[in-house]
């Protein structure tokens, strides 16, 4: 069964097309990466799947149910790009991760033992159980990102959707990330993630979709980084955003580059 099916989706902001005629199918147990340059529309694609951005035309099915009628949001764990700063009111790691449990436990029911255990298990999975009572503001960027994964895992989802999970994350946290995602997949979970570069997650990915200019430029195996991006000493720094926009992005399939 397909977990996420996007057919001929089109999305626009204020009259400007961001995505046009995008189709995507993620099967149960698959790990699919959506790749593309900044501004290609890859984040918009998953935000549309999550109903955060309205669909102009086309269809989206989640777990075989049209998105409009889909109600089992607890089956989806969403990991945003970064932790929202909030208005400065402190919150502990445990409190942030507990909000991942709300989809399962409902609005009015107080937290029970099973909820508290799910929060502790999720934090143990990302290696942050010892920080459960610390304010999230005292964590590093990578640890905050792991807290967000734990929040998604606390809801015991069947599908994880991650928006650039490794952007700006240190190597140790990237590897902790990769191990957590590998365990999630081994337990039968499905993963859809957006990335600018895969880093430590590369070995996990079954299939990649490259978004370029609002459409799908490639779908299939993870493309090899092309040109000078393939060099072992290329550090993927892009000080000038304009430099990567012309032509084909670094995730362009190699065969097209050669042809």
């Amino acid at each position, binding site marked *: 069964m397909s977990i996420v099916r996007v057919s001929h989706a089109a999305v626009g902001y204020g009259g400007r097309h961001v995505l046009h005629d995008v189709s995507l199918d993620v099967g149960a147990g698959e790990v699919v990466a959506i790749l593309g340059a900044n501004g290609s529309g890859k984040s918009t694609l998953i935000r549309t799947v999550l*109903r955060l951005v309205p669909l102009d035309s086309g269809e989206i099915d989640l777990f075989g149910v049209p998105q409009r009628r889909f*109600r*089992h949001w*607890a089956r989806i764990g969403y990991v945003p790009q970064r932790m929202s700063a909030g*208005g400065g009111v*402190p919150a*502990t790691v445990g409190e942030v991760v507990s*909000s991942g449990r709300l989809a399962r436990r409902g*609005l009015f029911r107080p937290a029970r033992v099973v909820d508290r255990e799910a929060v502790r298990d999720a934090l143990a999975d990302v290696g942050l159980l010892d920080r459960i009572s610390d304010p999230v503001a005292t964590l590093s960027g990578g640890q905050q990102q792991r807290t967000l994964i734990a929040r998604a895992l606390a809801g015991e989802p069947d599908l994880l959707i991650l928006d650039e999970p490794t952007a700006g994350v240190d190597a140790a946290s990237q590897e902790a990330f990769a191990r957590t995602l590998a365990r999630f997949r081994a337990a039968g979970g499905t993963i859809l993630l957006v990335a600018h570069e895969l880093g430590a997650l590369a070995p996990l990915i079954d299939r990649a979709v490259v978004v370029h200019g609002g459409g799908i430029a490639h779908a299939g195996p993870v493309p090899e980084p092309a040109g000078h991006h393939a060099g072992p000493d290329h550090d993927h720094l892009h000080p000038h955003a304009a430099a990567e926009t012309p032509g084909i992005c670094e995730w362009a399939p190699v065969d097209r580059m050669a042809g």
Partner: protein
Amino acid sequence: MDLFSYDFMLRSLAGALIIGLTAPALGIYLVQRRLSLIGDGIGHVALTGVGVGLLLHHSPVITAVIVSAVGAVGVELVRQRGRTSGDLALALLFYGGIAGGVVLVGLSTDSSNANLLQYLFGSLITTSTQDVVIIAGLGLAVLLAMLLLRPALFAVSNDEEYARVSGLPVRTLNLLMAVTTAVTVTIAMRTVGLLLVSAMMVVPVAAAQQVTGGFRTTMTTAMAIGVGTAVAGFVVSAEVDTAPGATIVLLALAVFVLLAAGNAAWRVRPRRAEEPEPPDVVLHG
């Protein structure tokens, strides 16, 4: 002390206690979503409700609740639609609210500057028994909503997009926040006045978060600071004859300054403890 031997004193003290407890419990969510000033704006709108009440010879508290709730829901709908023109729409609504209030209060039969001032800055002696019953009932309802729905309201205030993806009824929760904010503003206007209502929602929270590390501890600490400053400010204002609302707010600000200074001193303290003590230290009694 014969301070509490007058019924009107006990009534006002009850009002101050309820506000001291309720306003920070609600205000923490407003601070978290960077809407610290929304209570102030809704206070402006509530003044129109006061004017309507005085004009119709009805309880101003009830008409103010209704008008400010309508205003707050309007503000929330503007916020949900889009953020670009929201700022200007809010400004228009707020100034319309205060101008309408001043005109309507002026038109009412018992109009006087003193009457207007008691709503703008609070008043100890004019709280009627009916007012206290309304304040207690509405305050309890707001407090219960804030405490029982804390996980959901925390999730929405902390990360609204994540809350939406979790399937939480985000729009309903936001409207609930709007209405409860309006209710809190209105019940607080008797004690601290419409111009200082927002302070009781925000200042205890700002003070508490100087020394806390979690959301729940911040909430309970802010409520304790709110109640403490409300009672202390009430007593001080009665003893030295100052405006109660302003006295309560100044005390809360003093707590904020003290805790912020203590926090800063704690951060820059010399970290001697990490070094081993030299063995030959002799302490002289």
